[in-house]
C-alpha cells in the first residue's frame, strides 16, 4: 500500500490527523462563535470530499448533491423524538444512498449536459415533492428542541470528514478508483478494456451519497428549525462544486483547500458586503477554471517542485 501512496499523500494523512485534533480543540479554546464556523467548515469539507468521490473521479458534474443532504436532514427532522439520534443520522445517510441507487440506473445513462441538468432537475423535483408532502400534512416547518450541542455535532462532523477523506484515499489507490478515472478520460475505451463501467458508476454514485446524507442530518440538528426550502437549497450544490474546483477536484487535499478558502473569504466579507463576496466567488471560479483547472492543490505541487529544483 505504501508504494502507491506517494510521499506527499502520506504527509497529507499526517496533516489530516493533526488538523483534526486541532479542530477538535476549537470549542474549548476559541469559544462558541468559532465552534460554529468550525462546524460549517467541516460540513463543507465532508460535502465536497464526497462530491469529488463521484464527480471529481468520473468527470460527471453533478449539480444535485444537495438532494442527499436534504434527504438526510428530512429523515432526521421527521423522525425527531421518535427514533434515537445515533440511529436517525446514519439512517439519513442510508436513505440518501438508497435514493442515489434508485435513480442511478436511469440517471447514469445520460452524459454531458443532459446529466448536469438532470441531476439539478431531480434535486429540485425531490425538493418540491417533499415540500408539497409537508404542506399537505401540515408540517411545512418543524422545530427540533433538545438537539445535541454544537460541540457534539462538531465532533460527529469531524468523524464524517475523516470517513469521507479515507474513503477517497482508499478508492483513489484501488483498482476501482483507477477504473473511475479511466471512465473520466474515455468511457468507451474504458468499457472496451473491460472496466465494468455501469457498475462502477453506480457504486461510486451510491457511496458518494452517504456522507452528504449524514451531514444533512447533523446540520438539521444544528439549526433546531427545519425548513424544506433551506435544506434543499440549490446554492449548496453550487457551493460544493465551486469549492471542489477551487481546491482541486482530482486531489484528496482539494476539498480541504477549497472549503478553507471559501469559508475564510466569507468570514471576511459575507457580513459586511455579501454581494461583493459573491462577486469575488464568481471571479475566483472563472480564474481557476481558466488558469488553474486543477485547483490550489495542483498549484501547491507546482510550487514545491519549483522550490526543490530551484
Amino acid at each position: 500500500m505504501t508504494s502507491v501512496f506517494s510521499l506527499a499523500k502520506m504527509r497529507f494523512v499526517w496533516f489530516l490527523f493533526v488538523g483534526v485534533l486541532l479542530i477538535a480543540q476549537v470549542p474549548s479554546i476559541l469559544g462558541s462563535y468559532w465552534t460554529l464556523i468550525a462546524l460549517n467548515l467541516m460540513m463543507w469539507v465532508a460535502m465536497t470530499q464526497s462530491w469529488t468521490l463521484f464527480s471529481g473521479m468520473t468527470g460527471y458534474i453533478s449539480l444535485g448533491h444537495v438532494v442527499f443532504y436534504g434527504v438526510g436532514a428530512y429523515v432526521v427532522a421527521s423522525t425527531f423524538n421518535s427514533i434515537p439520534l445515533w440511529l436517525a443520522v446514519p439512517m439519513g445517510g442510508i436513505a440518501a444512498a438508497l435514493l442515489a441507487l434508485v435513480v442511478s440506473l436511469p440517471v447514469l445513462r445520460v452524459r454531458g449536459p443532459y446529466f448536469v441538468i438532470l441531476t439539478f432537475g431531480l434535486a429540485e423535483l425531490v425538493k418540491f415533492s417533499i415540500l408539497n408532502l409537508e404542506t399537505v400534512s401540515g408540517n411545512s416547518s418543524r422545530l427540533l428542541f433538545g438537539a445535541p450541542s454544537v460541540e457534539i455535532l462538531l465532533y460527529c462532523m469531524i468523524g464524517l470528514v475523516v470517513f469521507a477523506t479515507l474513503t477517497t484515499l482508499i478508492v483513489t489507490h484501488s483498482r476501482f478508483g483507477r477504473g473511475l478515472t479511466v471512465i473520466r478520460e474515455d468511457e468507451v475505451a474504458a468499457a472496451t478494456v473491460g472496466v465494468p463501467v455501469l457498475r462502477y458508476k453506480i457504486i461510486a454514485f451510491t457511496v458518494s451519497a452517504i456522507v452528504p446524507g449524514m451531514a444533512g442530518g447533523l446540520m438539521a440538528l444544528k439549526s433546531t428549525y427545519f425548513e424544506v426550502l433551506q435544506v434543499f437549497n440549490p446554492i449548496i450544490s453550487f457551493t460544493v462544486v465551486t469549492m471542489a474546483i477551487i481546491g482541486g477536484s482530482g486531489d484528496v487535499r482539494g476539498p480541504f483547500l477549497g472549503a478553507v478558502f471559501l469559508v475564510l473569504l466569507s468570514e471576511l466579507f459575507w457580513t459586511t458586503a455579501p454581494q461583493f463576496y459573491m462577486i469575488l466567488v464568481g471571479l475566483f471560479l472563472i480564474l481557476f477554471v481558466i488558469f488553474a483547472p486543477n485547483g490550489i492543490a495542483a498549484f501547491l505541487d507546482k510550487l514545491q517542485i519549483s522550490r526543490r529544483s530551484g
Partner: protein
Amino acid sequence: MTEILISPQLAFSALVLGSLYSLIALGLNLVYGTMRLLNIAHGDLIMVGAYATFWFFTLTGMSPLVGLPLVAGIAAAIGIILYFSIFRRQLSGIDRVERIEANSLLLFFGVSVILQNTVAMMFSGSPRAYQFLDTVYEVSGLMMTGNRLATLVIAAILLTSVVLFLSRSQYGLSISALIQNQTAARVVGINVSRLQFVSFISGFALAGIAGALVSMTEQISPFMGFPFTIAAFVVIILGGLGNIKGGIIAGMLLGFVEIYVVVLTSANFRSMLIYGLFVGILLLRPEGLLGKTRRH
C-alpha cells in the same frame, strides 16, 4: 370545466407565455448549438435587459419598444466582452466536447453570480416595476393588455425572422450547417469561428430583448433570471439540444402546459410540473421529445 379549457383568455395567456419561452430558448440554443457552451447565465442576461429597459423608461421616458435595439446592443456588448476575454480561448484551446461543456458550465455559473450581485449592489435587491401599455383591449370577449399583445407580436416577428434567416439565407444556412456538424462545416469551407462569434452575440442580444419584453409585464429583480434559465433549458431539452425549430415548438408547448395545468390544479404544482416533465422526458427520451437523435 370545459368552459375554462376552451376560453380564449387562457389560450391567449398560454400563447404569450409560450412565445416568450420560445424566444428565450432560441438564444440559448444558438449558443449551445454552434459552440457547445452551456450558458447558465442566460437568465441573467434577461435580467440585465429588463433592468436596462427599466432605467431607460424611468429616467428618460424612452418607450421599451423603441429601446429594444439599444437593450439588444447592451446584451450583445456583454457577449462580446465575454467572448474575447473567456470563451474564445476555451474554444480554441480545448478539443474535447465534454471538456468544453463542463468548463463552460462552470464559467457561466461564475458569470451568472457576478451579474446578479453586481446589479444587486448597484440597484439594491428589491423588486421594481413600471407601467407601460397597460390599457386593456377587448376583442369579442377576449381581454388583452397592450403590453402582452406587444410581447406576443414582437416575439412572433423575431422567431419567424430568425427561422427564415437560418433556413433561407446563405449565411443562416451556414450557421445551420455548423449546428449540425462542426467538422463537416469546416471541411466545406465555412468560417467556423466567425459564425460562432455571430451566434454567440446573437444569443445574448435575444436574451436582452426577451428581458425587455418580460419587464413590461412583470416585476424585475436581480435574481429573476434563474427561473428563466431553467425554463429555457427545459425547453431546449424538450426540443432536442441544438434543434432550433424543435426548441420553438417546445417553448409553445411548455407555455400551454404550464398555463393549463396551473388552472386545472393549483399554482403550487407549477415547479413540480416543470421539473417533473423535464426529468420524465430526459429519462424516457434523452434525445428530446421532438429532437433527432444526436449523440456525441
